[in-house]
């Protein structure tokens, strides 16, 4: 089992799901790809299709209309899939929590493996979150 874990750890393909966000977190994700932070050194790549994804990165507070899409996307992802709730909106709904269309933080909709708080979380925080997530894997 540990060989599979090792392989899975070395090549994580991210699929980014943007909920009702102010796209600060989305921009920070793209920042991670840029030369200064460059996640490709860890074998992490942003992919365009949920079929190729290993990590489902959810940003933004989920409003009622997003909820169905999030469930749909989660069902379509090939298992094993890790879910990371990113930013204050992802973890708890943040400043938009009392909005009339807020449909609950991400962990009420799909099981979440890791939380990256911050508004927006700095790219260093995102990397730290993914590294923690990957190291914790062998616990599960």
């Amino acid at each position, binding site marked *: 089992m540990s060989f599979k874990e090792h392989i899975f750890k070395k090549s994580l393909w991210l*699929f*980014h*799901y*943007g*909920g*009702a*966000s*102010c*796209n*600060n*977190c*989305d*921009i*920070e*994700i*793209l*920042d991670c*790809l*840029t*030369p*200064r932070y460059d996640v490709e050194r860890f074998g992490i790549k*942003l*992919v*365009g299709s*949920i079929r190729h994804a290993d990590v489902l990165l959810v940003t*933004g*507070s989920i*409003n009622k*209309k*997003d909820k*169905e*899409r999030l469930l*749909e*996307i989660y*069902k*379509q992802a090939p298992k094993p899939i890790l879910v990371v709730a990113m930013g204050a909106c992802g973890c708890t709904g*943040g*400043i*938009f929590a*009392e*909005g*009339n*269309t*807020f449909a609950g933080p991400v962990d009420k909709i799909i099981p979440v493996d890791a939380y990256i708080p911050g*508004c*927006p979380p*700095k790219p260093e925080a995102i990397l730290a979150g993914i590294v923690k997530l990957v190291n914790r894997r062998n616990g599960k």
Partner: protein
Amino acid sequence: MKKETQKTINTIIPIGPYHPLQEEPELFKLYCDGESVKDVEWITGYNHRGIEKLSESKTFDQVFFLVERVCGICSTSHPFAFANCMEEIAGVEIPDRAKYIRSIIGELERIHSHLLWVGLAGHFLGYNTVFMWAWKYREPVLDLFEMISGNRNSYAMFKIGGVRRDIENDKIPRMREVLDTVKSKTNMLIGAVLDDPVIHARTKGVGVLTKEDIIKYGALGPAARASGVPIDVRRDDPYAAYPLVDWKVITAEEGDVFSKAKVRLLELLESISIIEQCFEGLKKEPEGAIETIVKEIPAGIGTGRAEAPRGEVFHFVETDGSNYPKRHKIRAPSYMNIPTFKKSCVGQSISDATIALAAVDPCYCCTERMGFAYDYETKEKILNGKDLLKLGQVKTKAIRAKMEQEP
């Protein structure tokens, strides 16, 4: 869709809602005949957070933090417009130093927002080197923001009557040095991007918006200036330090994706010169004089606007003398720019449609703070938005069920 045209429009290409092209959830349904786009339907609502309703339950000071998170990339233009609006109601004049600091923050944000767009435009065209370079040169600007305000994007610098933090004069040399590197890199980017023959082939004559279109749709910002309509709130309705600084509005004529890129890149240089002049102004002003105390906000109505990187941001506030806004209306620039998709995308091929969608630099979360949907002309819907989306994915539910049976 009208019944008879359905036969001609056969493939519906849903771009989004979770498409790597945009970093925000929007569903564009391109009704295409083969490769060329016949019509664009734009369903949204994925980003709607009911900000205007939330704003009514916040005190004026808290509204700045809410309004800052309307949009991540132009996260200082909304507080800017809101501050202008509240100062108009309260009839308050802010000290010059606060004006300079506000303009510096506004222009720095324009720099990092335009660099971001140039990178994304390169990414949409498949030219990832431009994306990496543009975003690499954008990082020092974000470091500056971190130095001034402690956070890379939502800076929380604004307050009614002035600014929350001062920019000490000893920080200015460091900022000047970063701006020089950004200027030289921008010139290099202008050289690399604007003279590249392949980029010319991909962007010249694509997604053209004529002057009449801009006026008809009421489009704003760089998208309007690229078609020869010289509107810019900083010059027409001057606020903060813009009347104390001399600069010029950049316009182009053709109105295609290429001229929009040119306008944005040249505006970058203009912003750098504005900031340098603001540095001179800062030196003359006494340190620390960054706000006038505002006792209470009288009942009344105010309209405030500011020039965001994407165009004019408009805030309307009605106050009833209490500490909470009675009604707060936000209209973001992309709200007026996005309808122009009908004009700029129809008739293009799919790969052009994507870059034409991106050329207006639409910021969906700005538009979405209230959200709207634009529907096809006909009243009666063959399949409403949800069904169309399900069409593509109903099969996978069946598989999921089948997969669950087998272990």
